[in-house]
């Protein structure tokens, strides 16, 4: 279990899948590549986090954020500006 420290949060990214039907009728799955912004759910928060809470859906920038076991650890401090907005 990963416990973020200080102003960091642990985010489970949503994987967006687009199904595409080819000419032969086979349904292929395109998984969107890592892009500038990803939507995800906050799984755990550090002790200094006050702008979001566990369960929030947020849109964030994953660049340079440590990615461990498919989860991102993102800084919520204003200096970093990693989390753009929350959806709920």
């Amino acid at each position, binding site marked *: *279990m*990963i416990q973020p*420290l200080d102003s960091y949060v642990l985010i489970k990214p949503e994987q967006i899948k687009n199904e595409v039907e080819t000419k032969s009728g086979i349904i292929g799955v395109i998984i969107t590549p890592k892009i500038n912004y990803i939507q995800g759910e906050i799984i755990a928060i550090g002790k200094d986090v006050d702008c979001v809470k566990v369960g929030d859906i947020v849109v964030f920038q994953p660049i340079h954020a*440590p990615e461990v076991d498919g989860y991102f*650890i993102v800084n919520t401090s204003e200096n970093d500006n990693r989390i753009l907005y929350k959806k709920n």
Partner: protein
Amino acid sequence: MKPLKNRFIVKFDSEQKEYFQYGTLKLYSPQRGLRNEDAKVAYPTVAEVVEPNGSGFNVGDLAVFPHTILDNKSKYIKKEGSIVYMTIPFDGSEPIFGKIGSKGEIIPMFNNYVCKRMEEAKQSNIIITPDSYKKNNPYKGIVLASPPNSDILEGTTVIWYKHSDYKLHYNVNGEERETIVVKREDIVATCKN
């Protein structure tokens, strides 16, 4: 000689280029030929603390820091023969790693942690990877030594930013030593199994 706030005074022998001798402890600088192009390797040097001024050092401790700090002649206070006295700030503006212990180990200070890198998880049970091809996990490591009053204890698995784990390469009494040092601000999470 009293240092100003957030500074301590050290002395070093400016004629000792190849090594620093302190009592029985002899710290060699790495040979130029041994240096590689790995940007994550730092070559520290040491100096004897004369006036700790509340920095956490004791008089006579050997402070460990990058060798470039000693080249800053504007911080020199006085020279007695080849012995140079200089001030070093400990407010975070200079990267001071810690001090040398009695066995030549690095005792971390000032929000530095001595860590061990962790290997990447096995991808396959069929293919046996030779040791030379084993890769370290770029994010994970184990804390071996913490600075005083730290919230992260020794033995904790931590996650840090990629490329924030620096290897200190030095030489004690002719023996090559390597230590991985990570700053507190680069550690983002702890891991529990």
